Structure formats: C-alpha cells, structure tokens
C-alpha cells in the first residue's frame, strides 16, 4: 500500500490511507501507542482512554480519531505519559488486581502497559470492590476482579462468534460484565473455549482452566521485552493471527 498522506507522531512522519485512525496508521508503521480496549480486529471503542494523544491542543483517543494530513500528534511527552499512567492507576484501584498472585502476571496487557508508562504503584485509594469468580465452565474461568470493562469479549462474542455470550450491565462505577445464560453463569451459556471471545481478554479476567502458571518467570510474554516490541496479548495468542509487531 502506498501511503502518500502523512501526519507526524512525535516528529516521525507516519503514512496513512483514507479511513485510517491515528492508531491504525501507527500500528501499521510499527509505532507503539499504548492501548487496552483497542484490538485492530474489532471496531474501535475509545473507552479505556489509555491511547489518549494530543492533537492541536486537544486530547483524543488515537483509536477513534481519524488520521488527517499534517496532524502533529503528541504520543510521548511527559504530560501524555503521566496522564496514561494516571488512567492505568485508576483501572488498578477500581478492580482487584493482585499481580503477584495472578496467573496472567508477566503476560498481562494492563501490567505491561503500566510498566511501559513507568507506573510504580496504584497511587489512588483502592476501591476493593466485592466481585466474584465464575468457575462454572469446564474449560474457562472468569475472575471478575480483574475485568477492566474493555468489552473485547463482548465484541468478539457478538461480532465473530455470533453468540452474544457477554454484555455489560449496571451503570457508572457499578458497570459490570454479565454472562448471557439463565443462571448468569458461564457454564450455562453457549460459550466454548474455542470461541474468539476466549482469546481476546487483555487481562486475567477470562482464563483457560487446567494449565495454571504454565510459563515460569523469565519466560513469560513480557518478561524480556516491553509491550511496545512484543505487541498485544491477543496478537500473541496461538489461536489469533499474530505478529502484528516485530
């Protein structure tokens, strides 16, 4: 594809085609903009705000903002990085994210992006919400404590699996992931471990059973190289089309 139009991302010219968002063009060019709710296989969402960039003095989410000729996009200034760090800290205190005990640790996108932005502590007061674990399904468990409401499983189950297993309920700080089944349990739903929805969770909320802590420390996805090089969790899932990044 020949990109004749360009915009500037932290001073680097990035080519784009009509219809591209800033994120689309950056991903294609191998430039990393931190993100959580975005996955290039799905319609952009814009909810986590972690991909916030500054364009002409306005802050926009790179995953939803159409690229335009001559834009000057700030993706790496101290102010933007600090802002992202604060958004990540908000996500950390909103749920119950206990990295040392979490099976996803070392291969978790939330954790990896947090490291990437230099987050050293959750900073804000923890909410310690009371959330449950759903182990009713034979192959897959859901730990709602770790859900960050990115809606990737909702989108995958709806748009790819055509099953509508997941949706959001509640409002505001009470927003929560729900499972579409008579009991509300995953085991009573039409969910299968082969579903796309089983392979898109960026955190440790939707996890395969029977293979806990498979990778030893040192061999986990983000142990050696940062997320900016390794790429997203979903892109590295064996079942997904991988190698979006070098």
């Amino acid at each position, binding site marked *: 594809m020949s990109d004749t139009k360009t915009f500037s991302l932290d001073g680097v010219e990035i080519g784009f085609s009509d219809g591209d968002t800033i994120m689309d063009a950056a991903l294609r060019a191998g430039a990393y903009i931190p993100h959580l709710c975005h996955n290039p296989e799905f319609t952009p969402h814009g909810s986590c705000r972690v991909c916030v960039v500054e364009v002409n003095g306005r802050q926009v989410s790179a995953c939803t903002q159409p690229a335009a000729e001559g834009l000057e996009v700030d993706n790496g200034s101290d102010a933007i990085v600090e802002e992202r760090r604060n958004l990540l800290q908000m996500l950390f205190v909103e749920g119950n994210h206990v990295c040392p005990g979490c099976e996803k640790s070392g291969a978790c996108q939330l954790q990896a992006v947090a490291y990437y932005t230099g987050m050293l502590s959750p900073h804000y007061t923890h909410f310690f919400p009371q959330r449950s674990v759903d182990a009713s399904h034979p192959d897959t468990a859901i730990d709602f404590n770790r859900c960050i409401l990115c809606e990737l499983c909702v989108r995958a189950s709806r748009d790819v699996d055509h099953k509508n297993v997941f949706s959001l309920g509640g409002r505001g700080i009470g927003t929560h992931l729900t*499972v579409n089944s008579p009991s509300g349990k995953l085991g009573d739903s039409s969910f299968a471990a082969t579903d796309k929805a089983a392979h898109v969770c960026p955190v440790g909320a939707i996890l395969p059973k029977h293979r806990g802590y498979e990778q030893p420390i040192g061999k986990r996805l983000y142990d050696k190289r940062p997320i900016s090089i390794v790429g997203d969790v979903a892109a590295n899932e064996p079942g997904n089309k991988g190698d979006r990044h070098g």
Partner: protein
Amino acid sequence: MTHDEIIKTIIASAGVSHDAARRHLLQYLCQIQQRLSYIPGDAITQLARLTQLPESEIHGVIEFYSFLHKQPRGQYDILLSDSITDHMLGSRKLLQQLCTRLGVEPGVPRSDGLVTVDTTSCTGLCDQGPALLVNGTAVSRLSDQRIEQICQLIETATETSQWPAEFFDIEDNILRRDLLLADETAAASPDGSALRALIENGSDALLDIIEQSGLRGRGGAGFRTGMKWRFCKQAEADSHYVVCNADEGEPGTFKDRVLLNSYANSVFEGMTLCAGIIGAQQGYLYLRGEYRYLLEPLQALLQQRRDNGLLGQDILGKDGFNFDIDIHLGAGAYICGEESSLIESLEGKRGIPRKRPPFPVTHGYLNKPTVVNNVETFMAAAKISALGADWFCHAGTPESTGTKLLSISGDCERPGIYEYPFGVTIKQVLEDCGAVDSQAVQIAGAAGTTLPVSDANRCIAFEDVATAGSFMVFNKERKLLDMVQNFARFFVHESCGFCTPCRVGSSLLKDLVEKLVNGHATQYDVAEMKQIGALMKRSSFCGLGTTAANPVLDLLNRFPQLVEEQLAHSGYEPAFDLDAALQDARDITGRDDAGAHIEAST
C-alpha cells in the same frame, strides 16, 4: 388483570418486527415499570423473544436506568428530589420524616410492599421545592404538614387520584417575559404561522432566515442552529429525523418543563418547521422520565395538531409535507441529555455516548441524518419563522442573539423563569429575583461554573458565561462545600461508566470531597483533587466526564479560603476512616452508643 395479562397488553407483538421492537424496548420497559412497579423475569423473557436480543442485554438496559427495577417497589414509589436546592429547602429532614413515619429505609420496600422511599436526581421543580415524585407524578412545595398528610394517605392506601389536587399543582412561575414568552395568548393555540411562513417562502429561504437570525442551540453548547439544519439537509439518505431533547436533567433547570407545559405548540411547530426544511417525516420528543406527568397532555396536543392539519399527511394542505411526532420517555439517566446518548436511548439501548465523528447530523437516529435540538431552540426557531430574523437578532449580543430562559432557584425571594436578552449581567439577574447577601451563583447546573458574587458583572452569553438555563443562588449563610458534595455524588450516580476517567475519577473525587467535608483533607488531597479533575476534563470520552469535575475545581480555584478553613493541618491523613468502617458492625448489632464509635471512645 394479572401481571401476565398486563405484560401481554403492553407488548402486544402482532406485526411488530424484531427491529421495531428493539427500538421500542425502553418504552415497553417504562410501561411495565409504571404498571407493575418492576420488570418481572417473565417480561424479560418475552421481550427477549420479541426483540431477539439476549436476555442479558435486556438486563443491561434495565440496570442502566434509575427508574427501572428488577425487584418490586412499593405500591407507592416515592422519590424525593435530591437537588442541592431541595436540600436547601429542607428535603433531607423531610426524607428522614418520611422514612421514620412510614418505617422504611431509603431504597428498601416496606415488608408489606406498600411503599418505597428513595431519592432521585433533580426533578426540575427547584422553584417550588422541596419536591417528590409519587408513582411518577410530581408533588411540590413539601412541608412537614404535607409529608404528614402523604404518610396518612399512604397508610390508608388512598389512590393517588384521590389525593388533594393542590398537591399536584405545578406552577409555571414565569416572572420575566421577553421575545419568546411575550405573547401569553398565542402560546396555547396551534396557530401554524411558522409553517405557513415555511410554505410561503420555501424551505431554502426559511433556512436562510434561521441562519440570519444567528440562533444558537439553547442546550448550552451553542452550535449554530441554521448550520446544523443545513448539514443535516445536505446529508443524503432515504430518511431524516428531527429529535427534540427534552431530557432536562441539569440540576437546577426547569424551563423546558414550563415550555412543554404551556408552550408545547410552539415547540412542536419548531420541530415540524425543521422537518419541512431538512426533509424529515418522523420526529421524536425525548421526554425525561421525571416529567412523565406531562406525557398525556402532550399526546393530546399532538392529536389536536393532527386534527388541525398541522401534523400528519399533507400538512396545511401542502402536497407531500408529511411529518409526525412520537414521544419517547427517558427513565432516569442524566447522560441521555448528551445528544448521542439520547439517540442510543431513543433506539431502546443503554444511553452510552457514541464516538464522534460521525456526528448525528449525518449519522444519528438509526444512523440516519438527525437534527437534535433543545426544547427552547425549537420554540425560538418557530417564532423566528413567523416573525423574522430581525425580530430575533435585535435582542442579545452579536455573538449571542435573542433571549435566554433562565431557571432561577436557591436563595432568592422570587425563584422562577426569567427570560432575558443575552448579555444580561448576573448582577441584574440577582437584583430582579430578589437575591440578597449572595455569596455565589452556580450557573449551568452541576456541570456548569461556580462564580463568586464579585464576578456579578459578567454576562449570560455564549462568549462569557454560557448556560442552558440553570441559575442557582447561594447566600452567605450557605456552605458551598455542601453544594460541591451534592454535585460530586450526583456525578458518581450519573456517570454512564463507559470511559475510565469519568467512571473511576468521579468516585475518587467524591471520596476526596467527603474527606474535605469531614475535616480530614490536607493540602495533599487538594493537589490530588486538582490532578484527578484535570485528568477527567482532558481525557474523558464525552461532555459529562469533561465537565463533571467543574464544581470541585471551581471550589478549589475560586474559593481557596473556604477550602483552607476546612483543611486538616497535618502532613498526611489516611483515606481510611476507621470509625466509618465500623458502620456495618453498628448496623448488624443495632448499636450506636459511644462505645460503638472510635472517636467517642478515645
């Protein structure tokens, strides 16, 4: 009728397509809620079948809207308005009186199922508060005596239709009239003059007139109405829509209630005018659930307009001028005042804002070009059509032509509706409404701006202090912190939960404001509030999140001495309140003596 029969009558499904049923989902839910006081599981199953939606998604819609419930409420469902102006008029004491007298806890139905008492966001009766809604109908001017009477009526299970009629008197309280409200008699009659002008001049000429008038959206953002209509007209599609935003949820505003009560003909005329210009055949009035009691009168008025040839087929005899209006109810969600959330809600979904672009003028209701305007904007457009652009733009300022309706409440002798030419000073407004010893004004509601009275020389105008109409006055006796706390709680309740900064930030801010109120906040907490507020302002997804921190930031920036007086002068105070953490234990044991409190026992 049994529950099942009632549900069947409401969702009579003959001939309704899945798509149509989905769009109507929220309306079905509102009707079931109104009849049964909750949405039973059976109804959810039937609605899932009718709409072909997963049941979980219907649960998601129910859980999103404050007025919808999955468990039965009381036979009398009472919601006390929780606006700061209601507080100032003593509503919290009345809430306590209601609960004690009826033996209930807020939000929990009494064991005999007779009554539920709860609070709700501003009901738009701030000029005649404290107010409550009983089964969706407003009761104003509450007092100890009125609460006592209500308790007796409930205990004797008296139908609300048998309650004293004066309980339900809602006054317009129009205290200053200008361009829009000048003609008191024409308001009530469907005269069709705006539509005749449209037919005589043609839609192109009329759109020019709207543009020349300089009319800007009255919902607060001030987008040029003529430009919006032109964009929508130019967007090619097989259908266009006109939507009137009557989700007047901003605390302290109530002018749309008055317009819909007494000037709805002009509003409907403005919508029809817009339809004639952009080529729409269908319009919707999105009426906030708190104004449900206006639904039947408005529907009767629509029928009257159809009978008079002002709606329906070949309006005023003009071949092919076809347009009709349906009314959709909201169900207690402030976010639905945001136009893209409103469209989602109109389509029967959770009111989550859409990402933009594309904008509603090209991709709105059902992804078709849609004009969404405020009640007052449509009324002004109708008047401009009938009376001309000059009539309108001789009033106001060059940037903000015409007049603005202000809803004035709080500490003043004469609260009510005041119509002023744009450019009026705050000082003038304060004088006219009889405000003395004022400390501050809160303009444009919880999402607006707090101004000390020393700024009273500033003007109401898009180029200075913009407002959709809310104007709350606080005298020197008031603690502004109470207002800020009320608004901080409001935003926790009303954040839709879609984006991180608003969803989490509003709760963090609320907790810090409470820490300040309780005298435990330090300079560190002040810096935290500023940082969280700035983050919400910069990075939130929609206008709710970008404005939700305004009251906190205004307090910190403009009233530093009030903050200073409240601060604890230690280096660090924990966020954790040990005494508050014992509340669960106190509730379980039923103890509230000194020994059950940390502070009292040390």
